[in-house]
């Protein structure tokens, strides 16, 4: 059978296509971006709806709409996207679904490209939905159809959780059969979609009543297993890719009994058996101590090892090395870390328009005693690093505008916001309306490079609509200033910035120039 060398993300995408999805809804975010990108480019998926969404909440809701009429839909996001779509996600578990609905969250322990390392499994538990966490790329592929079947069988969304190393590691995948897309079909129990309190209370009780059955499914799932061993001094529970690091430590096979967890809620009977038969239990999981905390409980079982008692590092991703140490092995390092090697942080590309923006902004705010520049999430966050050192904050998508407003409300001046085009439509627009309504004295620099650049150049939802959007939200037309950020226009940009910072109200400066990376790519294509 033919094998394909695929990233975990790509295996998931192909698994979803072959599971008969009718749509994928997503906002780009590392390490999840390649799933949707693969579906967009796949010849097998020409009938699958796959345009990028404005944010994770609109994605989740659109997918729920597709599910409502009976079709299968996939939603993809990075872990922090779960925060954005949480309202829709949690409530979709209360309403339940019609066509299969799988929500994929790609977590980023060690924060390779993120501002925190939150573990999406907590969301799954919170919403009381089944979760899947593949241990290998092949399993990720195989699990996708199962995820949709499970979703349809239980009439609930299923959370599919991966971490960076699964998302961005390639392996050879053996492919399975394709399943056709669902036909549209009316929902059963149409009232359950109207979450008025009386209906929501009924539905919530139904969800609660479903829980013992969902645990039983986990206990019997082929993706979970109990593997016996000869040495019962230790038992190991390993979830997702932690299973691989555990096996890696024992090339000849582990002497310790072990439970592999790739489906949640936790398979209670398998874990109870392990706890009973072993003196101690080591919990291995890539991410936060989700399983470990549940096992310890409030009163803390002293026979459990993991991240919470220092056996493994409390923060950061699991590795084959920290797993080895936790299992009592030595590290066989032969060469010391070099003392002359220095960090090489990422930086904005040569020729990037954000550079011109920061050069001018730095010059102008130096004219004021106490300017603060609130920024946001994207390539321009790199303006925090030398040589620019230009920004004072980066918290979450859209926060630059609202933080500038809050600071301005408290008397801060100048209060400047720097936000990218895609981040602006993702979560900045609503905050701008707040600022307009209170006539806050803020200057928003909407640095528009016509793309979602940080994640590799995906379409940006508001391209060529920003002046209209800002005007529609109530920004005065004479305080919407568009400029091309190139060296030649330096003086013009600086004058505009000075004028608008001094304006007593909301102004939006839009430096607009195509991302240098997407420009290079399109020039290359033309050749």
């Amino acid at each position, binding site marked *: 059978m033919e*094998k394909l*060398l695929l*990233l975990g993300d790509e295996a998931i995408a192909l698994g979803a296509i072959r599971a008969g999805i009718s749509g994928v809804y997503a906002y780009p975010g*590392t*390490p999840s*971006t*390649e799933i949707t990108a693969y579906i967009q480019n796949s010849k097998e998926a020409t009938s699958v709806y796959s345009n990028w969404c404005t944010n994770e909440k609109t994605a989740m809701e659109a997918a729920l709409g597709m599910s409502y009429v009976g079709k299968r839909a996939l939603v993809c996001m990075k872990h922090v996207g779960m925060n954005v779509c949480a309202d829709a996600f949690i409530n979709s578990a209360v309403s339940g679904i019609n066509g299969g609905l799988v929500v994929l969250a790609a977590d980023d322990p060690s924060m*390779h*490209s993120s501002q925190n390392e939150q573990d999406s499994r907590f969301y799954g538990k919170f919403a009381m939905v089944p979760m899947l966490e593949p241990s290998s790329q092949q399993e990720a592929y195989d699990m996708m159809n199962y995820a949709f079947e499970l979703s349809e069988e239980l009439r609930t969304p299923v959370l599919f959780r991966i971490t960076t*190393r*699964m998302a*961005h*590691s*390639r*392996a*050879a995948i053996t492919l399975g059969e394709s399943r056709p897309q669902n036909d549209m079909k009316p929902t059963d129990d149409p009232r359950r979609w109207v979450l008025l309190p009386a209906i929501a209370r009924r539905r919530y009780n139904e969800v609660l009543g479903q829980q013992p059955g969902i645990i039983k499914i986990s206990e019997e799932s082929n993706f979970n297993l109990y593997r016996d061993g000869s040495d019962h001094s230790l038992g190991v529970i390993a979830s997702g*890719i932690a299973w*691989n*690091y555990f*096996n*890696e430590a024992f090339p000849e096979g582990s002497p310790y009994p072990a439970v592999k967890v790739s489906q949640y809620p936790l398979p209670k009977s398998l874990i109870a058996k392990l706890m009973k038969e072993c003196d101690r239990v080591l919990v291995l999981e890539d991410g936060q101590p989700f399983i470990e905390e549940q096992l310890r409980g409030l009163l803390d079982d002293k026979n459990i090892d993991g991240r919470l008692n220092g056996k493994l590092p409390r923060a950061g991703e699991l*590795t*084959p*090395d920290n797993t*080895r140490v936790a299992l009592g092995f030595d*590290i*066989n*390092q*032969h*060469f*010391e*870390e*070099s003392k*002359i*090697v*220095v*960090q*090489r*942080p*990422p*930086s*904005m*590309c040569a020729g990037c328009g954000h550079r011109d923006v920061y050069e001018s902004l730095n010059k102008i705010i130096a004219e004021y005693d106490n300017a603060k520049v609130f920024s946001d999430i994207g*390539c321009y966050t*790199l303006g925090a690093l*030398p040589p620019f050192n230009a920004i004072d904050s980066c918290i979450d998508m859209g926060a630059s505008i609202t933080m500038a407003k809050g600071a301005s409300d408290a008397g801060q001046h100048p209060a400047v916001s720097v936000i990218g085009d895609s981040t602006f439509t993702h979560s900045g627009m609503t905050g701008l309306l707040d600022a307009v309504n209170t006539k806050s004295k803020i200057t928003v620099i909407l640095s528009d490079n016509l793309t979602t650049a*940080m*994640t*590799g150049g995906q379409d940006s939802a508001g391209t060529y609509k920003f002046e209209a959007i800002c005007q529609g939200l109530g920004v005065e037309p004479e305080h919407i200033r568009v400029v091309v950020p190139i060296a030649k226009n330096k003086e013009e940009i600086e004058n505009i910035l000075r004028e608008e910072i001094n304006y007593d109200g909301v102004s939006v400066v839009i430096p607009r120039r195509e991302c240098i990376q997407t420009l290079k790519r399109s020039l290359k294509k033309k050749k």
Partner: protein
Amino acid sequence: MKCDIILSGVGGQGILSIAAVIGEAALAEGLEIKQTEVHGMSQRGGDVQSNLRISSEKVDSDLISLGGADVIISLEPMEALRYIPYLGKDGWIVTSNAPFVNITNYPEEELLKEELATLPNVFSFDVEAIAREAGVLRSVNIVLLGAASSAVGLTAEALEIGIKRVFSPKGDEIVDMNIKAFRAGAEAVKGGLKK
């Protein structure tokens, strides 16, 4: 067979093409493969690496353990040194000797040379000069792969199949250029890597 390879460089230098070629070659040979990549923020001029593990047996971990790499293939000398804690006792470093200086505190080139010289198995060379001489300046990364080819546990024939698979979507001309680059690199290490 089993070979654990660390590929390193600076974002944009082209380590992922090297990884793709080795990966496709290993796939064609029916071997097991796992290969991690760096996507996202670091690609913007930061340090990037790829762990590539190929084996005739099942490969468990996607990541290589400390002290476990059979070879470090690097497009940049400081980036090669960054991963020496992962280098096996008898492992090789095959690296370009050309610093890529995009930071202000880049170490002195002489110090890099000295430190590389303290390691037992190093082949550091002017990859770009070889590429220029062969007229394949756009395939510097594949020249480097050619030089490291005897350390990656695959035959030259298999690696050339990998090159064909990876570059054929870009046309025959690009395939030929990369085959030429690969051979020029292999030629630069006459008789393979030796102590």
